[in-house]
């Protein structure tokens, strides 16, 4: 662990005047890394990203440099970069703020990545609801074109680079990288069977790299400060810093850039971050990586918000969405909210996911509404084991990981808070009170 004061990277310009404009970005040193990258050349860039231990910030934490090295350089086909700004994982709202506060940082990352990967056309796919964010990004892109950064000549080099902003239209599944590619091709978002992976057969059948917004915004820092420096910021196998999103029952929800040793508890309690729990409330449970991650009980939260640390406890760093539930939260109702989401958003392609997500939602709802039957808890566990056996994470019986994402919360809620599920069934009602129209009420905010 380093003793030097923490230096923000991704969020360093937020709050400065004009941070979303080209002028503002350049004043703070922007686009210097691109210049440096063009001097380094593609092979050296990819090598630096590999050595930096930068891992994807979209959910899976895949090493970025390794992903880039899978693109066949000798392919005669055009190559594409698709930027994942779908940001629909419940509890996640960091990419939104990156786009609003500093779109040029991501654009610089896009330019560097494109140059390294021999990409001449890039699509930034934003979730459909990001209307304002798409407008801010388009303005930034227009500025970058006018300044000769994008367009016919990348920073004056003999290298054309076009970048287009595309909005989705409301479908969580389109954040899954192959569904995203289908959507970019103008289709419904049905994930593709892998392999082949997008790096080999991606958009329009051509080699394609899909990277998250934050991943690309990290790239300029790797180039500017060097791979070794970047790698040393984090523990082994995970470089840099991380932007996490804190929400739910906590005094100061928000987006925080953290060093990778910060634990879930520190994030909630630290004066720099969450500033603790609302008066009179205690932590009951925390989802550490977006709603697809297993839930942690209140006594399991001394774990760092970092890929390996969470993996070691059969959990995942995911998308950085940290959702806090207090001691007055009904875990059955909380799980019902999560389960409903996956049932709504299952694309319907694979039977275990399509049927399983609907079925588990019906059972959870029945339990919550006092209609649960003895044996329902086992039934729930059976249903989710049929979608995706756990542990470990990643054994899903489906084409994409949405099945796993739907199964993991249920498995963990039910096994860690089983007594609460059983109490609902025994008492034939929700012990927290029917209807729960009161939940979420505490002094520090929320709709009362």
């Amino acid at each position, binding site marked *: 662990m380093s003793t030097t004061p923490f230096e923000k990277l991704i969020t360093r310009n937020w709050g400065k005047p004009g941070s979303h404009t080209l002028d503002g970005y350049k004043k703070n040193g922007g686009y210097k890394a691109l210049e440096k990258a063009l001097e380094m050349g593609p092979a050296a860039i990819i090598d630096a990203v590999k050595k930096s231990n930068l891992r994807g910030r979209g959910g899976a934490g895949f090493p970025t440099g390794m992903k880039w090295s899978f693109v066949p350089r000798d392919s005669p086909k055009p190559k594409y970069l698709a930027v994942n700004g779908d940001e629909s994982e419940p509890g996640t709202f960091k990419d939104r703020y990156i786009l609003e506060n500093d779109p040029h940082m991501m654009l610089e990352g896009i330019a560097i990545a494109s140059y390294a990967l021999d990409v001449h056309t890039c699509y930034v796919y934003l979730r459909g609801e990001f209307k304002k964010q798409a407008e801010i990004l388009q303005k930034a892109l227009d500025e970058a074109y006018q300044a000769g950064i994008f367009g016919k000549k990348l920073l004056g080099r003999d290298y054309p680079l076009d970048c287009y902003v595309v909005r989705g239209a409301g479908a969580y599944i389109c954040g899954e990288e192959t569904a995203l590619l289908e959507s970019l091709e103008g289709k419904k978002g049905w994930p593709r069977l892998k392999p082949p992976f997008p790096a080999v057969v991606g958009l329009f059948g051509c080699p394609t790299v899909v990277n998250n917004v934050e991943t690309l915004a990290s790239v300029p820092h790797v180039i500017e400060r060097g791979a070794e420096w970047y790698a040393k910021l984090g523990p082994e196998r995970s470089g840099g810093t991380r932007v996490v*999103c804190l929400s739910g029952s906590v005094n100061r929800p928000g987006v925080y850039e953290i060093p990778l040793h910060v634990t879930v508890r520190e994030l909630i309690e630290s004066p720099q971050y969450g500033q603790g729990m609302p008066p009179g409330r205690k932590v009951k449970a925390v989802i550490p990586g977006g709603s697809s991650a297993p839930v942690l009980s209140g006594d399991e939260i001394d774990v760092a918000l970092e890929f390996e640390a969470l993996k070691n406890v059969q959990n995942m760093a995911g998308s950085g969405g940290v*959702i806090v539930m207090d001691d007055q939260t009904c875990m059955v109702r909380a799980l019902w909210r999560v389960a409903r*989401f996956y049932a709504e958003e299952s694309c319907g392609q694979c039977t275990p996911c399509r049927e399983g997500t609907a079925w588990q939602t019906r059972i959870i709802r029945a339990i919550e509404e006092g209609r649960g039957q003895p044996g329902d808890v086992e039934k729930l566990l059976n249903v989710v084991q049929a979608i995706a056996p756990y542990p470990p994470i990643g054994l899903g019986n489906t084409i994409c990981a949405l099945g796993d994402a739907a199964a993991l919360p249920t498995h963990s809620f039910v096994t860690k808070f089983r007594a609460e599920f059983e109490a609902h069934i025994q008492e034939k009602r929700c012990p927290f009170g029917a209807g729960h129209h009161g939940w*979420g009420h505490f002094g520090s905010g*929320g709709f009362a």
Partner: protein
Amino acid sequence: MANEALFTPAEQMKFDQELSEILSHYPADRKSAAMLPALRLLQSIKGWLPPEGMTLVAERLETSVARVYEVATFYVMFHTKKPGKYTIDVCTNLSCSLRGAESLLAYLEKKLGLRAGEMNEMFYLRETECLASCGTAPCLQVNEEHYENLTRESVDELLGKLT
């Protein structure tokens, strides 16, 4: 081909101009890739996706009408039925529910005299999924405009403007 039943001349011009700009973003032999932006354009002009409009999109993108329907019905932001003037999407996912989204929805249902999923001439009230606004919960969208950190007062004020 102009479609007089569908568009006024001004609408037709907007559609044609913006569609040709959109198409320039894709390889010439991949016109159908422009499906989502083309449908969004149509919906921005008509407020929904009328059948004649979807037929026109199929023609322009050189694909089948069935493909257009398949896409239009897959994504929740596309309206294949004419909605009320204002579609109100309330997030009731976990982080928002932890901050009172269920009360917010109940309040709106009462005020509008609609249950979630119902519509009238003016309003289409829906429950929606996480809108990436969990840190500023609860939140909702009205026809793609976003509102967050909602309270009774701000909801009343907002509803007052929806006339």
